[in-house]
């Protein structure tokens, strides 16, 4: 099978994740959509590794996974902190600069 099909899938998943980041209000769901976008990018990396016959794409995907893990840990800690002080995990409620 032509590996470019995986690239199409990656593009679609990335766009779906982007819509989720903009449309959803719950900070945790927004975070999950960012994870989906990172995963889509990873799929593109792994596919390019196969197309080019070179393992460096997989090394990049590996690094992305580590960075994503760090990002999740810090991001969820921030969400917990915001939830503690404002009793809400909605991204619309944290708008102090707006008022």
């Amino acid at each position, binding site marked *: 099978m032509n590996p470019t099909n995986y690239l199409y*899938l990656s593009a679609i998943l990335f766009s779906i994740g982007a819509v989720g980041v903009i449309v959803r209000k719950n900070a945790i769901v927004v975070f999950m959509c960012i994870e989906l976008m990172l995963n889509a990018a990873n799929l593109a990396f792994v596919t390019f590794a196969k197309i080019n016959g070179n393992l460096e794409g997989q090394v990049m995907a590996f690094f992305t996974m580590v960075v994503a893990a760090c990002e999740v840990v810090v991001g969820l800690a921030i969400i917990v902190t915001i939830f503690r002080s404002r009793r809400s995990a909605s991204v619309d409620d944290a708008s102090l600069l707006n008022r």
Partner: protein
Amino acid sequence: MSGESALFWVLAPLAVLASVAMLFMKKAVHSAILLAWVMITLAIFYIALEAPFLGIVQIVVYTGAVMMLFLFILMLVGVDSSDSLVEKIKGIRSVAIFTALAFSLTLITFIARAELGRPSVGLEEANSGGNVEGLAQYLFSDYVWAFEVISALLITAALGAMVLAHSEKSDVARTSQKSRSIARFRGKSIATAAGLPGSGVYARNNALDLPALLPDGKPSDLSIAEVLHRRGDVAESKSYELEGLPKIDDEGNK
């Protein structure tokens, strides 16, 4: 149809379907489960793309650790913290969907028209010494500096999460038995000063969700814990109530 393309055409639509459904789920837990499914699908794709190490890491790190963390925080923040569906910025939903459609169509067109100039090489040669060995070769030679920096990043993230999520003390004052006892007697009424009545104990039933019966045969709401009332889990006590007793109102008059 080869095995790989069959795998792709079965799993890829399911992954797209699950990720679209993820956007429409009202409860965050459902979104998390759907995302876990998408991640498992991607892990299968990685293995099909001759990246067995990344496939396993995807399952262990993403569906294992990251989704676990997500569910853990969801339970902490409250499972039923569902979304408000009000648009704060007018029309942002349609704009977002339109932009994303345009973006994905552009990407797909570019990918379709891109001339790679040669057929896919495949990883048979690169994986000849083993996939893990090949990755390790890169990680510990060309990318050793990035590898070290990323270890520092992991430690920083762990420390940052500890600092952010650490709370000195709960701001809810702890009540002692003494203060609760004083509050019972200084309250509006001393009707419950001796403590709330226990739940019903009958010859055939003895459970926390069965109300106790008052002298006139009425069930007593006070004998059931508040949380059971809210959940609507109070058992029916009709069959234990006595008939023909004079009814007494709350002031004790017949």
